[in-house]
């Protein structure tokens, strides 16, 4: 004796075993199956034939699983694109706003270290912040224009140099030089400006990844 409920339960298990695991599509497919069985029964088929025809009409399990997997993959790519866009905006804002914020602090509000500075020192600090931005956007431009040439090795060499320079600045130059407070700040800021190269590379990196996931999801 054919047991429809048992056959549907077995089909459900088969689908789960094949990898159609997401509960919503499976529930929807089962509702579809039941409706199709009902229609076929009304057209005169017996329960067993109606069930097997309905399952056949749904299509091969493997193909179904692949199609649902594609939907999930696309969603993941879209999420990764949004994440990289957020990074890109963050780095862009940082590189762009740094000189603006510093300029306001130095010339408009004159708080913190800037209160004691001379006009020349303030201008020097602002120039270092502008330099930081130029480093960042220059690096971004180079990385995007010459993606092939700008290999990981060159990038690592550059970062190593910048890091080494920062260490030399912090542990050798600054402790052994006898700068006044204002001059000390200006020198530190100029010393830190090559850090913009790292921000520039991150800017290009997040953009490349975002465009990469965009291409994958549209192909």
């Amino acid at each position, binding site marked *: 004796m054919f047991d429809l409920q048992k056959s549907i339960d077995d089909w459900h298990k088969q689908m789960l075993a094949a990898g159609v695991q997401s509960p919503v599509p499976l529930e929807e*497919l089962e*509702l579809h199956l039941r409706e199709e069985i009902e229609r076929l029964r009304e057209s005169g088929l017996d329960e067993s034939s109606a069930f097997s025809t309905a399952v056949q009409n749904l299509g091969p399990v493997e193909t179904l699983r692949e199609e649902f997997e594609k939907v999930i993959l*696309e969603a993941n790519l879209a999420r990764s694109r949004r994440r990289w866009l957020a990074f890109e905006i963050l780095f862009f804002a940082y590189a762009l706003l740094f000189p603006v914020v510093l300029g306001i602090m130095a010339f408009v509000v004159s708080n913190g270290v800037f209160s004691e500075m001379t006009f020349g020192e303030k201008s020097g600090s602002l120039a270092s912040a502008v330099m930081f931005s130029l480093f960042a956007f220059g690096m971004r431009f180079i990385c995007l224009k010459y993606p092939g040439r700008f290999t990981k090795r060159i990038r690592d060499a550059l970062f190593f140099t910048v890091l080494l320079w920062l260490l030399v600045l912090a542990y050798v130059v600054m402790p052994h030089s006898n700068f006044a407070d204002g001059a000390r700040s200006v020198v530190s800021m100029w010393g830190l400006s090559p850090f913009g190269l790292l921000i520039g590379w991150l800017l290009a990196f997040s953009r490349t990844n975002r465009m990469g996931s965009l291409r994958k999801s549209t192909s």
Partner: protein
Amino acid sequence: MYDRFMINKELVAASTEPLILSLLAGGENYGYALIQEVKRLSKDKLAWTDGMLYPVLHRLERRGLIKSRWGESENGRKRKYYSLKKDGKTALARHHQQWSLVHSVLSGLRKEQYV
């Protein structure tokens, strides 16, 4: 027997999205009814594999073109209803433009051949 008027697989795949959007433009509906409607309108010449509709519906939903809600039919059967969103209407208009263009080019070429 193979029906020579059956629409080929690639064309069926390409037309799925505009067809679903067009059907939903007429009001909210659920998967099974959408398939039956396409079969009826195409006189069974557009052979959709039933299950393949659902990944497409889910993709359209994730892309924000349609939305869904669980509901019940008159006889108490659980159903997932889909309806068109604003972006879906825009996408549908774009599909109409593209398909009309292909149709007009094809018709134009056919006329030229008979002149």
